[in-house]
């Protein structure tokens, strides 16, 4: 059970959060310009990494804020958290 450091509330139990999948997938500004394949890429395709992964989490039973998490999926360690709109820490790129 993770202990997640919400950037707004501090460390809280995982049961207060919900996971929102891969982070930094930006909704296309002009969806109508996209081919079926390009749209499908945005809509359906997600990475499934063993190692360092960027994820969205929502403090749904707390401040209800969305934020980003860097997690090593091979050992479940959360390496960093940062707010929406912020860039991921350079060291994990």
């Amino acid at each position, binding site marked *: *059970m*993770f*202990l997640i450091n919400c950037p707004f509330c501090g460390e809280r*139990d*995982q049961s207060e959060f919900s996971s*929102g999948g891969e982070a930094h997938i*930006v*909704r*296309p500004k*002009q*969806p*109508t310009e*996209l081919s*079926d394949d390009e*749209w*499908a890429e945005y*809509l359906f395709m997600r990475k499934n990494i063993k190692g360092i992964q960027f994820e*969205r989490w*929502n403090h*749904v039973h707390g401040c*209800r*804020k*969305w934020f980003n998490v860097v997690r090593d999926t091979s*050992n*479940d*360690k959360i390496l960093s958290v940062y707010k*929406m*709109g912020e860039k991921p820490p350079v060291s994990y790129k």
Partner: protein
Amino acid sequence: MPNYRIHKTEYIDETKRVSFKYDGKTYFGYEGDTLASALLANGIHLVGRSFKYHRPRGIVSCGAEEPNAICQIGSKKDLTEPNVRATELELYEGLEASSQNCWPNVKFDIGGINNFISPLIPAGFYYKTFMWPKSFWKKVYEPLIRLSAGLGKSPTEPDPDIYDHKYVHYDVLVIGGGVSGIIAAKMAAKNNLKTLLVDDKKILGGSTIYQNNESIKIDNKLSSEWLKNEIQEIKKLSNLTIKTRTSIAAYHGYNFLLAKENLTDHLPEEKKKNKIRQRLWKIRAKKVVIATGSIERPLVFNNNDRPGILLSNSINKYLDYYGVTCGENIILFTNNDSAYETSISLHKKGIKNLIVDLRKSASSEIIKQAESLGIKIYFNHVVTNTFGYRKINSLEIMKLSEDGNTTVGDKIKLSCDCLGMSGGWTPMVHMHTQSGGKLDFRNEDQVFLPKENSEDQISVGSCNGDFDLENIIDKTVNKINKFLDIDNQDYQDTNIICSKENDKRNIWLLPNKIPLGKTKCFIDFQNDSTAKDIKLALKEGFRSIEHVKRYTTTGMATDQGKLSNMHALGIIADTAGVKMGTLGTTTFRPPFTPLTFGTIVGRNVGKFFEVVRKTSMHEWHVKNNAEFENVGQWKRPWYYPKNGENMHDAVQRESKAARDSAGILDASTLGKIDIQGTDASEFLNRVYTNAWSKLAIGKCRYGLMLNEDGMVYDDGVTTRISENHYLMTTTTGGAANVLSKLEDYLQTEWPELDVYLTSVTDHYSTASICGPNSKKILNKLFPNLDLSDENFPHMSFKEAKLENINCRIMRISFTGELSYEINIESKYGHSLWKMCIEAGKEFNLTPYGTETMHLLRAEKGFIIVGQDTDGTMTPSDLQMDWIVSKKKYDFIGKRSLYRSDTIREDRKQLVGLLTDDPKEILEEGAQIVSDIKSKPIDMLGHVTSSYFSPNLNKSIALAVVRSGKTMKGQKLIIPMENKNINVTVSDTIFLDKENKRLNA
């Protein structure tokens, strides 16, 4: 009655005699006993029958690893409990226990016959034997297995006991209160770390606390005396919490652990009352010290399962801790030094004993001590067979060959009434592996040891493979100093004398002259699997330990193979000719020992099982005989039966009243989201399929919300209250998800929008009045409100006062009737409802529930998201193309509406169905076909909503059908179990296509 209690100990209070019942017979023990020690004191070894062969089985151990002494406690329908280990159950006055696996009784049972037909019950016998014929399952196999399998009885009534959960946070958690755990806890707590020490036993001290061998000393004291001092000291430490009778059940990631504390299981019935029985501790620790110790290994030889055969160290504990001897003529069979400690303890108490040692010779201090006491030792010998049906009475030993692979010379027969076995020690690495840690294999003594950690934890003491006291103390101190980054000097000058050495001769399957096929060398006592079974599994091609385990069921009983896993692995490695350690181990899964359901659930039972949401009108519905339906967490009136009406009749009456005069619905449960901000209109434009910018203030509009994949997600009416203020309604079940989805887009995709969302579902109560007379009723309630179609047309909103309370009134309709929804602050909801009912009396205003609501909307062909849709329906599939704006550049899901898959013409589409026989009501979920002759039958779709309409006097249904849009007028078939129903595809709107009733 025989008495095997031969001396007093400080742990048994002989002034407090305790009577208990075992298998219906009354016995006595003392306070401090476990059920197992009390039975042994009474000379009882036989405690059950084995799972497969129904062989007599006795107590083997003194702890959590016990495979045989499994009991059913109590007989009350609500309190009886199966699978309790007698070795862990503390004795209390009035305890009633019975052996579990011994139908019809422990001394003679029908399953015993399996022992003689055992050649027919090989590995995988369940898979092989009970395969055929199928008809035998229900009548023969299943009842037989159930009767004879001895899996215990579940209580049949709700558990009346109270259970509790508690969250705690500590700097350091120490698991296990033996020597190393006590040292670790003391070091941590003295260094100002908030520390928790848990131990599953009643008292701290592990196996050292009853140690009385003069040759094992610390600081010139008996090791037990030294430890008692340590315990006295740690009890004074203010930032150390000690929890005994508390066992760790699971070790999860991020140092989150679950522990079960037993609070009343050791108390007599009358003292248990109104107390919390067990508490589940949810522990977060910054650091965890694992000091769970080790358990002794049995040895695998022919007939090693007879009652009276125990682990050597358990014999020692029963003697020195409980004052009970397991026999009067004991043989100890060992491959290492630890059985000598038992031997010397027995000797001191005058119990005759001798030792059979697999080793060719050994010369540690403790062996010299035994020799000097005149204890007979057979070195380089192996036990090859045992005798005695209900209890061991003799055994045979033979000399081992040089390589240990076979026996040589003549059999020597020795009589005995008890056999202790010691195959060395298995470190309890369960916690380490549960935490995600890896294991290493140490060849010298064939043990798995903790290796890499993924959590901030450390293993110390014998669970880390340090078996002698000197090593345990030195290494624990060093490791804890490093682990906690401290410099504790308390133990620097501790002087330890230990006479045992670690030398050991490990042979997994002991040699025998008898062919393996004719032996019974048990590995897993509880699941009755033998060395032969393991070898057979290998012969049949199984290689992976996980497969062999499942095929032979080794290690799959309630003890999870605590005693058997290592031997299974060893025999597989030997047979397959691979190195131990390369095979890996089976997975150690939580819980370490079984948990009761009550502990897991805690207080969340009965009315606390799930949150129940009730509207402010709920009380009125109850008083007026409503039947309720669960919609999400909400209790919604389903229908209001009158004078013994059944559901059908009530719904027919309610539906007719709503269309003929007036009906009233509690619509408070609909989700309500308050939307404010300068970009509120733009926001709605992006989340709904239709256009919102031009909606005038005071007007309402129906909206359809899609997922980004183009599928319908939710729907509802949104009202523009002022320039930058909207009130959105959602489906009852979808409210929370819609809010979350909208917040997600606002926070992550469109942070530039000035929009604020607030859930106001609970803040307003809603009474929805519909029907031709609804305007008259509204007029009575709001005499000052101009209800004319010019002032207050369909799809518009007014604020009005009921007496002096503000109301928001929407003229919107989900039934197709002239209809008003009155919203009021929730605290006035009940009054509003009663005033509506009062005002409606002269118009036969009829309260109706969700079923009538569903019927009325189906007559109008309005969809219910989640009933007529299932996450695969686009607006076009629902024949709702009219609601999708062609002009808007973008909205959630727009691009997906013209993906190659969503524009297919043969998608399932919503249609109406009329049965040829108007009285025939279709079943929701029924399949739809056009041709039942060709096989396989082509499934075209299914019925989503179906009702008998009293207003049309015929059956109507909605369905999704492949290419349904083009099928109007076509005949289709609904094949049912006993008939085929003929239907015709129709329009989805069955009543008032012209919408005349909205302005009636």
